[in-house]
């Protein structure tokens, strides 16, 4: 029992259950204790450490530690802490508890040694994160939250169906590498995981919901759902070739949409799709270097993406809008937020001295070393787009462009700056000392990011992309638009779906109900006086014959039937 309570995911979920019993004042501080406890456990459990249990005759491995789960565990726990600091001023219990369950779910998935445990934590993530969208309490967030939930129930259902099929065919529940075989079980599991990894065309829940979640909620969301799915892909589906092309396509798709979008948080959401594309591509390549790259990139990505969401969240908090068309010219009013945001932007763009440089290059080079130069060029093209929209377009149209902006700017709580500061420090720290990250990677690292070749490559690409942006920036000017994506099919289909599955079904039930009532009415009228048709000699014209017979007549009728039955049976 004690062992069960020391599972990192369970620590956070226990924390979520304890929070409601604490007074409001100490709740934000108490929130921070649980990720730290989980981090302690993550660091102290050696490779091969397991916690087992039994459920319905199945032997469950609820925790299993190794180098891969450790590196994801470290970053999930750290992010839960940093996001907790960012949300320190927020007093809403529902959001606090659900954020802890959400982080606990991600950590639970990371350490799950069997597929049943995994899917339980997986579903916990889906439900708790939905709260973080609905907590925004706007009409848009209500709808987006519902679509998000339905999408994740579908994904979770596919994963669970795959797991059951896998169990039925192999008899194994272990979370282990699956051979590249497109059997029904494997495909169901892969598609279920791909929903959470936002693999196109299953990515629309992300771009739809993340920009509409609460300011603090989206910081948690940027870290856990997609990256826990990346973990499962690294663990179970390394070297599945289909992932190379889906990953590279995701990387480009996200980049193109980020140029089209005009909402700062939507741009970042599409860049999650793009960045996860790098990881998915690396997983598809499947060499040790590529898997190291994907893992390292997931680690770096969680840090800089949470920093970027914190920065844009700060803009939304201060100005009340995330629409670029209302922003611009904020540099004088929010210079520190700009500085901290730019650390994240330089990191995601893979600029030297920042943490994106040490992991993105590894993934791209892994594609090259594996002989896949097409994928390599696609990823390089995607990095141009990343720098273009997150590093240049977004900050330019938010903090510069206009000389003045009379929008009212609210003062930010200090804890927001502290959280952004911690994340920014980590981005620079790992950028300067890559080996502090490399030692935790699942395979031995034989990669040096700071070579002259890499520096020349990145600096040339970045400088000329900057020039391109400067010349073409008017083409990206903010406007009030909504960009349609694949979600159009189900969002516009909603009235038709409602007609077929709700309205028509309702009408059918109404008709059936009326029919049944009509039959009942007819029967009760007929049986009101059975003597009318049982006794052919009844005079129908006689008014008395329409009266119900007295009870004694009915009783004698039953008695007579009983007697006839008895005689027939015994004789």
């Amino acid at each position, binding site marked *: 029992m004690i062992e069960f309570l020391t599972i990192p995911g369970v620590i956070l979920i226990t924390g979520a259950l304890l929070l409601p019993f604490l007074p409001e004042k100490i709740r934000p501080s108490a929130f921070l204790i649980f990720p730290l406890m989980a981090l302690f456990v993550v660091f102290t459990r050696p490779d091969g450490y397991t916690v087992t249990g039994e459920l319905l005759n199945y032997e469950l491995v609820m925790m299993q530690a190794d180098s891969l789960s450790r590196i994801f565990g470290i970053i999930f726990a750290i992010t839960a802490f940093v996001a907790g600091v960012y949300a320190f001023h927020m007093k809403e219990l529902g959001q606090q508890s659900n954020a802890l369950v959400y982080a606990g779910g991600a950590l639970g998935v990371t350490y799950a040694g069997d597929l049943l445990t995994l899917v339980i934590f997986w579903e916990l993530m889906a439900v708790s994160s939905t709260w973080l969208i609905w907590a925004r309490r706007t009409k848009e967030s209500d709808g987006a939250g519902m679509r998000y939930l339905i999408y994740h129930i579908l994904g979770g259902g596919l994963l669970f169906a795959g797991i059951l099929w896998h169990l039925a065919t192999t008899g194994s529940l272990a979370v282990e590498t699956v051979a590249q075989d497109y059997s029904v079980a494997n495909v169901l599991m892969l598609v279920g995981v791909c929903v959470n990894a936002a693999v196109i065309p299953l990515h629309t829940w992300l771009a739809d919901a993340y920009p509409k979640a609460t300011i603090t909620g989206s910081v948690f969301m940027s870290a856990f759902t997609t990256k826990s799915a990346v973990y499962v892909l690294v663990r179970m589906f390394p070297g599945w070739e289909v992932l190379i092309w889906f990953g590279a396509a995701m990387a480009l798709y996200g980049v193109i949409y980020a140029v*089209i979008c005009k909402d700062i948080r939507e741009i970042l959401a599409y860049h999650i799709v793009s960045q996860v594309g790098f990881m998915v591509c690396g997983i598809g390549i499947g060499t040790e270097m590529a898997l190291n790259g994907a893992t390292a990139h997931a680690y770096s990505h969680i840090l800089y993406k949470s920093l970027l969401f914190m920065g844009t969240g700060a803009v939304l908090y201060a100005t009340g809008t995330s629409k670029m068309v209302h922003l611009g010219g904020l540099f004088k009013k929010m210079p520190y937020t700009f500085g901290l945001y730019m650390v994240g932007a330089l990191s995601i763009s893979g600029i030297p001295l920042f943490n994106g440089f040490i992991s993105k290059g590894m993934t791209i080079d892994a594609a090259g070393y594996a002989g896949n130069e097409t994928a390599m060029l696609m990823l390089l093209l995607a990095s141009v787009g990343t720098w273009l929209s997150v590093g240049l377009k977004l900050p330019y149209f938010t903090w510069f462009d206009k000389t003045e902006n009379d929008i009212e700017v609210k003062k930010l709580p200090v804890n927001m700056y502290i959280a952004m500061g911690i994340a920014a420090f980590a981005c620079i720290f790992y950028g300067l000392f890559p080996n502090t990250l490399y030692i935790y990677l699942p395979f031995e690292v034989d990669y040096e990011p700071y070579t002259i070749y890499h520096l*020349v490559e990145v600096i040339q690409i970045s400088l*000329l992309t900057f020039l391109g942006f400067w010349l073409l920036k008017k083409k990206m000017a903010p406007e009030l638009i909504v960009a349609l994506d694949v979600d159009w099919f189900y969002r516009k289909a909603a009235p038709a779906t409602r007609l077929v599955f709700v309205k028509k079904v309702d009408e059918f039930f109404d008709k059936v109900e009326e029919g049944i009532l009509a039959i009942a009415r007819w029967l009760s009228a007929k049986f009101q006086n059975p003597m009318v048709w049982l006794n052919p000699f009844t005079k129908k014209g006689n008014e008395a014959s329409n009266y119900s017979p007295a009870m004694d007549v009915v009783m004698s009728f039953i008695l007579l039937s009983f007697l006839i039955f008895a005689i027939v049976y015994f004789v």
Partner: protein
Amino acid sequence: MKKIHWIILGVLFVITLGFEFTVLADYDSHWWNAIPAFYAIFGFVCCTAIVYVAKFIAKNIVNRDINYYD
């Protein structure tokens, strides 16, 4: 952008070119290493392509009024 910023970026670019033609002159791990200043050309061409492709898609296919889904 002030003039001095452009000068700094220009100098940085010249330095990378300097390295490319001296230290990295014999570097050959991909076919494109034979093309001089490949990464600079790649950056500029790709940036322009992304902007125009995105603009084309936005204008002709995906952009709608902000209240489209309401």
